[in-house]
């Protein structure tokens, strides 16, 4: 907002604002830095211009009496002064800083949004505070980033970053081996050894923060029999799948939630593989072995499922060999599989889940909580009840106990069988210093030195559909945004710990319901504009307020923050919350 090139009309509104929302404003003259030059005669002589802090929404939402259809956790975001923002939440949220660090919480320049959101030009012309800025985007071929000369932090090591893409792991590795790229994402499972054996290359493994599961619709025969499901859980050799089709760093699942996540792994482990006993249980349950049962999966490569067809084929062969059950593989289309399965259409599926943020709720609540979809059929009230309880428990040990009980019940009810936590890896030329992998795919290219070259070429799976990441959901777009934009917090390089970025700190109140964030001073956007608290407010506002004229995005319906923060406002004509797993599409 405090762009030095501000013109007169803006000051008119500015002063009007001061009068109208005076309550939200703190005396600006005392907090504004002396460095900011006066821009017009109106502020001549003053040490700084006055600050008109905005709030979103104008009136704080009463969490005990929310507006109709608003399920969100945000009560109000207030620009207290030029460099202070307060987030008022409805409930304490242990993952709040993780959510602030997420790419969708990137901070945009208010003026840029106002100028470029209406015609959506910001989708292909981003203006961020990050280490890099967009130089060119050759549609279908590559994106080139160049160092942002105004970057507030350490200058990026490589002057230029070229981002290319190929959906084929083989092609990516081929390019790396041929030396035409410096780093590639998602090394093929069977190529780990190739990379490790090549002295010109280095492999960076990614922690397995995901789960592959075999899901049942517990309402559909023959899987509506708990004993049958239990038998299948015992008759699938999970270790064989993990050992043969997954790279190093993967493990056969003992629990649904990966154990790297706090409080995830208490209670019963999934039963060990025992084909004989499993078959006996099926016979006892009167299972019909003469039929062929459908098994639905999609061929999309994910780190929880790096070789979809091979794993599905192996499960098919295990069903036959271990259990005497014939199953037929049915390949579902990418586009319809998730929505169809969320409605409980398929009797048996192969699917997985990767963490958005490292908390148990991001696994258990999403699949088994009250808001979960119908992929596994009718919900289990005993599990739901425990999950509702766990969500509100502040103490770690209490949560551990609760989630332990949930794990016991999952083993008892078997709505699904967790199979594998899949590791993945990036690979780099050996001379790339600072090469790393991030468990959630947020690799920071700015800290990498590509040998003696001044350009780093990175090859990922796919082309981004846009570079306004408020409404992108694909990791390949989010990663590029993270090079161009900053959020208030960020993840430490290669880790999950949140560290301040555009904020110097965000401090929670004692009840955890208010976070006060202090912004770094003098941060400039690459194409003009200086960071202030209103930029933060507007960046969140245009995502969460579906009625805002600046709520445009690339294509409607992919607003990640509506999901992270639980909902949106003014959803007219009902364009809210499309990606939230908690709200399955009505049938």
């Amino acid at each position, binding site marked *: 907002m405090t762009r030095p090139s501000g013109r007169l009309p803006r000051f008119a509104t500015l002063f009007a604002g001061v009068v109208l929302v005076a309550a939200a404003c703190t005396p600006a003259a005392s907090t504004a830095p002396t460095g900011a030059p006066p821009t017009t005669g109106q502020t001549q002589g003053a040490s700084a211009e006055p600050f008109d802090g905005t709030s979103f929404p104008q009136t704080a939402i009463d969490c005990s009496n929310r507006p109709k259809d608003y399920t969100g956790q945000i009560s109000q975001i207030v620009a207290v002064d030029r460099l202070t923002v307060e987030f008022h939440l409805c409930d304490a949220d242990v993952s709040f800083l993780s959510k602030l660090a997420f790419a969708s919480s990137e901070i945009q320049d208010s003026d840029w949004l106002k100028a470029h959101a209406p015609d*959506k030009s910001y*989708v292909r012309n981003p203006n961020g505070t990050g280490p890099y800025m967009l130089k*060119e985007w*050759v*549609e*279908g*071929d*590559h994106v*080139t980033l160049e160092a942002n000369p105004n970057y507030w932090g350490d200058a990026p090591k490589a002057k*230029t970053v*070229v981002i*290319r893409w*190929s959906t*084929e792991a083989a*092609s990516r590795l*081929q*390019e790396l*081996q*041929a*030396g*035409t*790229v410096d780093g590639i994402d998602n090394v093929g499972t069977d190529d780990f050894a190739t990379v490790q054996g090549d002295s010109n290359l280095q492999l960076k493994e990614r922690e397995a923060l995901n789960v592959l599961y075999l899901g049942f619709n517990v309402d559909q025969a023959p899987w509506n029999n708990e004993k049958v499901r239990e038998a299948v859980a015992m008759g699938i050799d999970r270790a064989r799948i993990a050992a043969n089709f997954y790279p190093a760093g993967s493990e056969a699942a003992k629990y649904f939630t990966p154990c790297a996540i706090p409080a995830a792994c208490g209670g019963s482990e999934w039963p060990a593989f025992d084909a004989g006993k499993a078959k006996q249980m099926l016979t006892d349950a009167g299972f019909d072995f003469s039929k062929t049962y459908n098994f639905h999966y999609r061929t999309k490569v994910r780190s929880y499922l790096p070789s979809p067809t091979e794993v599905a084929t192996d499960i098919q062969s295990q069903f036959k060999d271990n259990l005497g059950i014939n199953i037929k593989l049915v390949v579902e*289309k*990418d*586009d*319809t*599989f*998730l*929505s169809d399965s*969320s409605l409980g259409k398929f009797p048996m599926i192969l699917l997985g889940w990767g963490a958005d943020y490292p908390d148990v709720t991001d696994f258990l609540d999403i699949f088994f909580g009250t808001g979960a979809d119908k992929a596994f059929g009718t919900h289990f009230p005993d599990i739901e009840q425990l999950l509702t309880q766990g969500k509100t428990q502040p103490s770690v040990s209490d949560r551990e106990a609760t989630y332990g009980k949930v794990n016991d019940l999952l083993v008892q009810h078997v709505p699904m069988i967790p199979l594998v936590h899949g590791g993945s890896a990036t690979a780099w030329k050996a001379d790339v210093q600072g090469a790393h992998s991030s468990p959630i795919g947020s690799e920071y290219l700015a800290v990498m030195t590509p040998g003696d070259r001044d*350009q780093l*070429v990175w090859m990922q799976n796919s082309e981004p*559909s846009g570079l306004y990441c408020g409404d992108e*959901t694909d990791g390949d777009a989010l990663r590029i945004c993270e090079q161009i934009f900053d959020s208030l917090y960020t993840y430490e390089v290669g880790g999950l710990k949140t560290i301040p970025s555009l904020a110097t700190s965000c401090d929670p109140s004692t009840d955890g319901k208010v976070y006060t964030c202090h912004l770094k001073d003098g941060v400039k956007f690459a194409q003009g504009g200086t960071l202030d608290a209103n930029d933060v407010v507007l960046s969140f506002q245009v995502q969460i307020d579906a009625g805002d004229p600046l709520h445009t995005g*690339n*294509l*409607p*319906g*992919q607003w990640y923050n509506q999901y992270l923060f639980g909902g949106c406002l003014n959803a007219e*004509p*009902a*364009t809210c*919350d*499309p*990606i*939230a*797993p908690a*709200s*399955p*599409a*009505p049938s």
Partner: protein
Amino acid sequence: MTTYIIRRLLVTIPVLFGIILVVFIVGRLLPGDPCHILLGERASNAVCAAFNHDFGYDRPVLQQFGDYLSALSHGDLGRSLRTNLPVGDLLISRLPMTVELSFYALLFATIVGILLGVLSAYRRNSAVDVVTMAIANLGVSIPVFVLGLLFAFLFAIVLKDTFFALPPAGRLTAGVSVVPLAERWGLTGYAGPVRAIVDFVSNMYTFNALLSFQWGLLADGLRHLILPAVALGTIPLAIIARITRSSLLEVLGLDYVRTARAKGLAESAVVRKHGLPNAMLPVVTIIGLQVGGLLAGAVLTETIFGLAGVGRALYDAITSHDFAVIQGFVFVISVGFLLVNLLVDISYAYLDPRIRLS
């Protein structure tokens, strides 16, 4: 001749309309709804209703077809459902790549194909002939995707660090950037068809390099095009070689050629002066006919070599049900196709007056 061309053009019009209709119908027959496909996997029905309204999919199909035709008559190909980019822009960025690739593939196929065919006919029934024709027969039998994969393996990995190493994918070495001709020639302020044509040519990187005298860029572009062009050109090459051989043999068996031989003309001169010019007619036709095959092959070639061409874009559009892109691309491609066929027919008629009169 003029009447022939006019008649030929008139015949083309109903075919063109048929194409538009077929493309539209096929687009509507694709199952699944574009909204869920394009807006992410869990888009709610309300979102989809808004989306369908936005793109006009909630209107009656007949009206949609009318809208489409009227937009088309204004040169508006619509906007991509997936990227929201104008289909026209997408064509200008994607089609040049494919045209360029097809050009080099056809160039390779024509030159080498005719050479092999002539050699084979000249030395008919010799070992050279047998080997050449065996290779030609194999050439039409190896699928583009097998050949392409083996090439990529051989030239990018096995021959890595040798003189013969060639890049396995991409159009240019990363970091090599191309200055649009419009920028170079100071045309950035202009819009309209002329600008579109300049941009089109500009996006054929090797032609761009030629026109702006950037030899390094030209070499880099060509190096990247060798493998895909050879893989794509192999089948046409084999076909052209076979046609050249049989056509030349037929001509060489004709009376006037025998007369020429009887005059004591050397066999090489007979082939060069009397055989070749007369044998070229079917060869020209068959070269024209290869254009369609090249485009189909381009889908596979672009997939294997990671090239952002029209084949790949169309494949993506079809599998993701991007109606607007499918319609626009297929329309333009088909028009191009009809034009090529027209040219072939006309040149044929020009060369062989009997056709004009029939």
